[in-house]
């Protein structure tokens, strides 16, 4: 007896060793290899996602018309399509900018010394800018035959507590020097430093100048509808049509601080008690790895969030489903009688329940009650588990029935083994290979169901692959011209699911010798 004890190993090591053996066997099958590679990719991406995306990402994604999404180009293609030779303008972000020049300007002529393009664009008639003036310049190379979407300036003000920001006013002038030498005043804004705003191209600032310069016959109203085409293009036929104007563009940003004595402002900047970080973004028609959707959300980030969600939900739901099915199936088969009858009728009902309509119903109920986020998702997944274990129970019951009448079970019973010992030592271990295969097969089910519900418009409020596809479906008119919106989430769903189908096929072949090739 004592020698047997000594041989008995740590069960964890036994499990790990058999898992390694299984892995070795899976690798000998093509399908198994493919499945493992995709699964490994999914796990790596999940870890990357969990470590890089902020914890409040779901709520960020939900509020689509707030930063950071409004700083991105809308409907932008993935950046790498530029390398495929497709003419699409790039998005350039210039952050941590330092002013190229700064000085106190008290007479209007002085602006010409630090920003000659200002004089070129507006003459020296205007009184602006004066006070403490900073000039920023960035170059943007529109290297393809395309328009850019917009130019944004994002300000971030940092000040020590004794600075009264509401008293300092910032006057922003944005100028654009075009490849044809024309300098346009494309933006003009004023606001106190405690109420900073995003500055964008404003058609009102340049329309008159533009129409004058090119002698156009169109009205201001007509200019408004396609201002970015005008800014980054050349008018034809009096302004009815435009041609793209590629080349070097220069954005000049003139910031004039007024409201208090300019020398005081200069001193604040000098000693660092006031700092204004300036970021200029020239938004092209391409952005990031997977482009953006119709409101500028970075689709790569959205898709990235889906990895851990798909894996976690898939595994949890599959595990719960298979465990319930296994336990109830074994109970039903082993004990028989009235217990068996009750469980079998229960199975009869749940395998015949139309699951998708039921899920939609519950989903609509959740939505009308205004529940969102993880609780909503948990309820839907719970419904899936409750109505999916039937199939597993049917098979495990019949397997338990046949094992029950095996001679070694009879023998165990004869020497007085307890019921639980027989069930856990003799019956369930035999069912593990089969349940493993089913578990692997059913991992994608939950996330595919979730995706389907999302596409139908049931919004659980989390950015899953299904949710992204649902947004595309809701904006079908434009989304169907945007392959980078429809393809990646669907492909990932498919690959995810394919990995488990392939692993399932392989496991099935391993545990069911009859399926092996001769």
């Amino acid at each position, binding site marked *: 007896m004592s020698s047997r004890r000594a041989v008995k190993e740590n069960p964890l090591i036994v499990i790990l060793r058999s898992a390694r053996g299984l892995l070795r066997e899976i690798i000998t099958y093509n399908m198994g290899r493919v499945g493992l590679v995709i699964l490994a990719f999914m796990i790596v991406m999940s870890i990357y996602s969990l470590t890089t995306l902020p914890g409040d990402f779901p709520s960020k994604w939900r509020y689509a018309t707030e930063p950071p999404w409004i700083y991105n180009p809308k409907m932008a293609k993935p950046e790498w399509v530029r390398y495929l030779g497709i003419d699409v303008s790039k998005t350039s972000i210039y952050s941590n900018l330092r002013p190229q020049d700064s000085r106190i300007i008290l007479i209007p002529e002085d602006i010409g010394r630090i920003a000659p393009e200002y004089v070129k664009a507006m003459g020296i008639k205007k009184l602006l800018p004066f006070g403490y003036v900073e000039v920023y310049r960035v170059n943007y190379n529109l290297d393809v035959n395309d328009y850019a979407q917009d130019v944004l300036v994002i300000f971030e003000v940092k000040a020590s507590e004794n600075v009264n920001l509401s008293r300092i006013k910032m006057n922003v002038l944005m100028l654009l020097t075009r490849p044809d030498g024309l300098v346009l005043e494309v933006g003009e804004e004023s606001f106190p430093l405690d109420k900073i705003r995003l500055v964008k191209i404003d058609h009102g600032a340049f329309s008159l100048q533009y129409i004058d310069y090119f002698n156009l016959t169109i009205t201001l109203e007509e200019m408004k509808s396609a201002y970015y085409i005008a800014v980054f293009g050349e008018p034809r036929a009096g302004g009815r049509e435009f041609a793209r104007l590629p080349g070097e563009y220069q954005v000049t940003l003139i910031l004039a601080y007024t409201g208090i004595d300019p020398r005081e402002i200069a001193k604040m900047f000098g000693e660092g008690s006031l700092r204004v970080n300036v970021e200029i973004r020239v938004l092209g028609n391409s952005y990031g790895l997977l482009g953006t959707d119709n409101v500028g959300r970075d689709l790569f980030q959205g898709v990235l969030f889906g990895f851990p969600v798909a894996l976690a939900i898939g595994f949890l739901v599959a595990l719960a489903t298979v465990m319930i099915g296994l336990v109830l199936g074994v109970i039903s088969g082993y004990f028989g009688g009235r217990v068996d009858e009750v469980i079998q009728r229960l199975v009869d009902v749940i395998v*015949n329940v*139309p699951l*998708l*309509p039921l899920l939609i*119903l519950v989903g609509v*109920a959740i939505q*009308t009650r205004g529940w969102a986020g993880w609780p909503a998702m948990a309820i839907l997944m719970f419904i899936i588990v409750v109505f999916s274990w039937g199939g597993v129970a049917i098979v495990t019951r019949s397997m338990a029935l046949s094992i029950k009448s095996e001679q070694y079970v009879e023998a165990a019973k004869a020497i007085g083994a307890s019921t639980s010992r027989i069930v856990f030592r003799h019956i369930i271990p035999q069912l593990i290979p089969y349940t493993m295969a089913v578990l692997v097969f059913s991992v994608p089910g939950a996330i595919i169901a979730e995706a389907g519900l999302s596409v139908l418009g049931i919004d659980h409020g989390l950015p899953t692959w299904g949710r992204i596809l649902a947004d595309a479906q809701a904006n079908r008119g434009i989304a169907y011209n945007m392959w980078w919106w429809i393809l990646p989430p669907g492909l990932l769903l498919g690959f995810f699911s*394919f990995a488990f189908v392939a692993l399932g096929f392989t496991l099935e072949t391993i545990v069911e010798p009859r399926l092996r090739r*001769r």
Partner: protein
Amino acid sequence: MPLDRRSLRVIAFRGLTLTIILFIILVLTAVIMGATGYDTVILNAVIHEQVRAFREELSKPGSPYTPEEREKMVREYREQLLSVYGLDKPWYLRTMSLIPKVLVLDLHVTHDEVAGVLGLRRPLGAGDAIAVALPRTILMITLAYVLSAIIAVPLGPYIAYKRGSVLDKSVITYAAITNAFPVWWIAMLSVFLFGFYLGIAPSSYRPIVAHISRFSDSLLSLNFSGALTALRDVLYFSYIPILVVTFAVLGGWLYSARAVAIRVVSEDYVMAARAKGLSEGTVVRKYIIRVIAGPILTFVILGLAGSIGGFIITETVFDWPGMGLLYYVSISAGDSPMVLALVYVTTLVYLVARFILEVLYVILDPRVKL
């Protein structure tokens, strides 16, 4: 073949079980609809909107009513609406009272939205709504299932017989791929690819309604040339959905037919038959096909029966106004009578198919007679 008493008892017992299952599913659906309060919330919103419109109508300048009269009329109108939608009763009375009626389909569509999706107007009986939606689903989904069956039933066993060949491997890969990608995503992709990018198919399929009715109208008035052009339009609007569903369904069917056949092909008695020196043709005909016919017939029939419920998500993606879309719109509009009617009809058809199969088993397979 005459049925003995024992077989009859088995059949009667299965029939009774299936009836009870149907009843339980109906009650379960009604309970979930009622207990979650989902329809109450939706119906309250609907009533609120109608009452608001009614009040605005009354308060137009020049209305002959005093404010008190107006308030009274609004209150009466609201009560009338509450009783129309059944909200004056507790949920169990409201939803449970539907169950006896659904058995004879004595229910009506309660929302304009639901009738609208079919291109019809209220008042509309639930049975009539289903009668309109069903042919469209049959055109798209059941037809695709039939196509899949025509291909898979002979091909599946054939590849099982040729196990390990290139054809076998490619079919398995194809099955794994179609199993992995949701049908509705392939539908989205096909709308993008064929509808928008290539422009060889419609991008919205809703107009199919007009073409189908034009086709049946001209057929009834014996206008065959008109029917022919209408048929061409129907085909133009349906070939992509049919192909997409066939593409998606076929893989699974091939795999199932193959799996059924593989078990039989490697049975000992097949080997024994070969060892006896029987010709390969005889072995295939008498020892393989005869055995696999039953299980294959089972999943073909159950598949066809299940198909009439429609593909809810795929029909929504295509904007195809069949059973699936009717299902979805009924649920999202909170039209509980229509939801219950749809659950009833689709489950009934499926369970009847199961019952027929079980009767066939009892008749054909002597082992089933317990």
